[in-house]
């Protein structure tokens, strides 16, 4: 386990260090809407209130164990500000959030899982422009990782702050790899395919028993954006025009995926995928050893610890195309974002909570350790309580 975590964190740090195209692409793609009247700014008080009091609502999408982590940090905020009460609405997706903001429901601070909405929310004003607060409270944006910094603003408007980041990589089941005689995780897509075919076993009726790696778009994280860094596939050209049909990186990925899927048989893969359980349950294919390798986010480490502590696994950067080995170690980087909703009745209190969640070192470290997500401020990396720093220093 310790080894696994260490490798994950190394992968994560590397991924964080390499600003990948896809992160920026998510931002670029989000700018599809047009127009809006979110620009009007009401001036704020010249100094932050010395004493915070009142009720503030926090909407987020986490549930179960992860919601408890958020609650832990909220409790700390309330303890530090005894006259503040935070009303938490957990399990809220973007659709509900959008409707709630539009309907003028009581939303003060909102946390979303999607960087794709930044453009839309900034432009429409669903999230308020944070410029005045940042300037007044002298929040140093240089402490944010560059990619993270870029995907939380749109067209010069900063309406969101990062609430931790996510990095993606290859998870591999060490026991299954050892059994198949594979000593190191694959580094290229061809190696991944060869290893996967070696690891795949079949039942007597020809159906798949254990799958090496599922090239089919079955799992949540098996998404084009997450695969793109493997071949350096680009979304847009310099003029903002789509490159999906012309960039050779996409072609390479699609051809690799198609050939790989056909070697196993698409029908067999579909049948196998159809029999998979909810991947956020303890019956997750990788956690029960039904799949030997998988592309997944860094949060899986916390899930493994919670749901499958006995599985001996490792993590590595996701393999790259054979002609793109220079890209090895990079990967897709994205994250959660938070903002102050339009119509917030107590924006100062909302800002205080948002600031606490996003730039307070202790809060960020606690969140990152609890959710096993990537911290987004440099001070969190240097913190002595951050397990990310501790292990990466050791490694």
């Amino acid at each position, binding site marked *: 386990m310790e080894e696994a975590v260490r490798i994950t964190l190394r992968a994560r740090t590397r991924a964080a260090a390499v600003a990948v195209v896809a992160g920026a692409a998510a931002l670029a793609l989000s700018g599809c809407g047009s*127009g809006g009247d979110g620009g009007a700014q009401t001036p704020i008080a010249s100094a932050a209130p010395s004493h915070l009091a009142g009720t503030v609502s926090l909407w987020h999408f986490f549930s179960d164990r992860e919601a408890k982590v958020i609650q832990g940090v909220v409790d700390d905020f309330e303890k530090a500000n005894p006259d503040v009460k935070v009303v938490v609405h957990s*399990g809220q997706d973007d659709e509900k959030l959008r409707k709630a903001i539009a309907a003028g429901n009581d939303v003060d601070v909102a946390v979303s899982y999607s960087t794709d909405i930044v453009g839309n929310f900034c432009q429409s004003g669903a999230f308020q422009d944070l410029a005045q607060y940042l300037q007044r409270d002298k929040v140093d944006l240089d402490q944010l990782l560059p990619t993270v910094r870029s995907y939380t603003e749109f067209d010069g408007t900063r309406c969101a702050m990062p609430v931790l980041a996510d990095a993606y990589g290859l998870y591999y089941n060490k026991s299954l790899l050892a059994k198949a005689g594979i000593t190191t995780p694959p580094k290229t897509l061809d190696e991944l395919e060869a290893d996967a075919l070696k690891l795949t076993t079949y039942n007597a009726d020809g159906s798949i028993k254990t799958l090496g790696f599922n090239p089919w778009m*079955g799992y949540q994280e098996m998404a084009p954006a997450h695969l793109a860094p493997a071949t350096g596939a680009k979304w847009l050209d310099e003029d903002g025009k789509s490159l999906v049909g012309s960039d050779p990186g996409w072609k390479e990925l699609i051809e690799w995926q198609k050939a790989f899927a056909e070697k196993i048989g698409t029908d067999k893969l579909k049948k196998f995928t*159809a029999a998979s359980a909810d991947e956020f349950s303890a019956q997750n294919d990788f956690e029960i050893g039904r799949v030997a390798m998988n592309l997944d986010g860094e949060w899986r480490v916390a899930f493994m610890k919670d749901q499958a502590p006995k599985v001996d696994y490792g993590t590595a950067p996701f393999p790259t195309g054979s002609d793109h080995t220079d890209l090895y170690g990079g990967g897709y980087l994205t994250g959660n974002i938070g903002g102050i909703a339009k119509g917030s009745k107590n924006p100062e209190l909302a800002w205080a909570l948002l600031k606490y969640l996003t730039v307070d070192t202790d809060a960020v470290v606690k969140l990152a350790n609890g959710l096993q997500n990537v911290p987004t401020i440099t001070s969190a990396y240097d913190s002595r309580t951050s397990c990310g720093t501790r292990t990466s220093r050791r490694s």
Partner: protein
Amino acid sequence: MTALSDTRPAGVPRTPVGAPAPRRRSGLRRHRQRVALLLVTPALLGLLIFFVYPLIATVFYSFTHYDLVSSPRWVGLANYKYLFTQDPNVVQAARNTLWFVVFMVPIRILCAAAVAALLTRPRRSTGVFRTVFYLPALVPPVASVLAFVYLFNPGLGPVNRVLKVFGIEGPLWFNDPHWAKPSLLLLAIWMMGDVMIIILAALLDVPRDQYEAASIDGAKGYQKAWYITVPNLRPVIVFSVVTGVIAALQYFTEAAVAAGVASGKALVGEGTGSGLGYPEGSTLTYPQWLYVEGFSNYALGYASALAVVLFVVAAAFVVFLLRRTKSFTGSGS
């Protein structure tokens, strides 16, 4: 009310001379009108608030760029232009919906009629069978879909296992773009109780003496069916077709749940819009696309344009059907 005046004895003047009756009567009429108006007001208000206003608002929003948060901005016909010339998904969505209209509506009615016909024969356990065939219509659609997707699961489901016993390699059902819609059709047939019950009622309502008279005249079974049963069923069939077409044009829930469950993607933190259409857009219906545009992509103006087009098509369908079937249903219906 007119019956009262008809019973007036001949020679009796309409109004007794010198009596203030006209005023009283007109006062009474006014009073009645007022009461009637008062009684229909809640329904009228409901119609105005929940139907007329949204309808007019939808038409207005269809000419705007509207994202729910900022105020709508007039864009003229841009939404319609995009719908008819650029939208990459609307054609597939419309074709899928059309598929449901063309196949689901008639096949459901045919199956329902066939089952109803069998259930009219007086046998000992007819009551039990009538209940059994109606029961699926009472099951909540989401629960039915979940059960069906499980039963037809190509990897684990019992249907393919049973087929395998007979040496048949079952298809991928909800996981195959060619089989996903027929799988939903199977589900719809299973849930045909609502149509079956009204056809059964109509069948039982056909006067026996007509069959007897036809038998005396030497009519054969199929002749009796064509000349007696079908004409008697006409109003019910037209009703089923009209409501069926409208329901098929609005087909959403079953396809959405089937896609979400069959795709196997856990939609943690994601909205409803993200899992629709699986596999390969084969179950993406027009109303679903409207929903995605409106509530996942926040393009309320464009979604309104989609809604207006759907409304026009549905209205045209119904008007066409009723015109075509006027002679079919007869003036009485």
